[in-house]
């Protein structure tokens, strides 16, 4: 089994599982789309169930950026926040589709789930480190930064669903505008000046 075949099978499996769900997808179809023999599929994955778990775990991890650099500071607060927010948006937009399958309880053993959860937590911690770094560089409001990161991540998580189905308010909103919205939002929270509305 070459790495190439492994990838081909997992990519095809992901596509079909996403479209038709677990039950409706056969290994035969996966093999056909991946352009390999069905016996090749079973040489690498003991069962359809194992293939499913591997596929979802792989795609969830893949949605976490390897290149998010804790120490990537530009010298400009807005720019740095944009770097952070863009990464969160990327994670959420990519995570949301596989999350749809994850949410259902069937077919995912607890060990695989907790592994995925751990990677998400690690990612979150990297974001916290980044924002702590920002607080040393710029005069921003002194907040509980782990809670701040969780709040921003959550609101992006929530909005990602509506963004992906293109509901009324998001129509015509391109990704950069979507991102600018959250950058402004984060800036407002982090600003030292109080915003008293008239």
């Amino acid at each position, binding site marked *: 089994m070459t790495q190439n075949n492994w990838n081909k099978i997992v990519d095809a499996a992901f596509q079909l599982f996403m479209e038709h769900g677990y039950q409706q997808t056969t290994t035969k179809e996966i093999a056909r789309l991946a352009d390999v023999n069905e016996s090749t599929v079973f040489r690498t994955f003991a069962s359809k169930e194992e293939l499913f778990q591997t596929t979802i775990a792989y795609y969830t991890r893949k949605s976490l950026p390897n290149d998010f650099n804790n120490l990537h500071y530009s010298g400009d607060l807005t720019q740095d926040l944009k770097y952070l927010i863009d990464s969160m948006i990327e994670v959420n937009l990519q995570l949301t589709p596989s999350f749809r399958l994850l949410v259902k309880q069937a077919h995912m053993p607890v060990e695989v789930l907790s592994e995925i959860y751990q990677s998400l937590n690690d990612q979150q911690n990297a974001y916290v480190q980044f924002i702590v770094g920002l607080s040393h560089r710029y005069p921003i409001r002194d907040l509980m930064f782990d809670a*701040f990161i969780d709040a921003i991540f*959550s609101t992006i998580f929530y909005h990602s669903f509506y963004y992906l189905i293109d509901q009324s308010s998001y129509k015509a909103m391109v990704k950069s505008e979507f991102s600018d919205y959250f950058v402004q939002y984060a800036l407002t929270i982090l600003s030292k000046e109080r915003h008293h509305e008239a």
Partner: protein
Amino acid sequence: MKLSAKEKIEASALILFSRQGFYETSTSEIAKEAGVSEATIFRLFSNKINLYIETLTSAIKGFEINTNKVLASLSFESFENDLTILVDFSFASYFDNLHIFRIFVSNMIQIQEIREFAFLIFPDLRQLFNDYLNEMQIRSKIQTCDCKKFTNLLLSNVLKDVIFTTTFTKTEAFDQATHDLIMNQWVNKIKFYSSLLRRED
């Protein structure tokens, strides 16, 4: 009270769609779970997508959270204490209606038919928070704020935690252990949220 065949089918369908997903659940499974024949399902709902829509519609109609009791337990004095009560109440409400939110999360992107009425933040909870924040502003206990934004931020955090907790730990109930785990994590978050609106004078 005896449930009608229609109610039994909808109750079983809700749980199976939530746990397994729309495409992964067959009408024969639902019939078995509800203790009726598959023919009864088709007679009452004609097809699977119709059953799905009707199940969701009935579940949403049944959505009612009684906010009177929680309002009575608020002090309108300590923002932090009140937020703790409100957050606890929000988690309980989400867990009570977990299946419907899980169905929304897993299918609202995929299944066009439910987009119109699928929502991830409970309208009743949103109203409760807005009313509370307005009252606190009038009493000058918190600084003036954009209540809607604040409510959205906080409730999306609750939603995310419900989804993450139920997904990654396979918990379906807000039992004592889950309650303690979540509220423990929220001690700091509540400090954070209340610090956002604290008056400095």
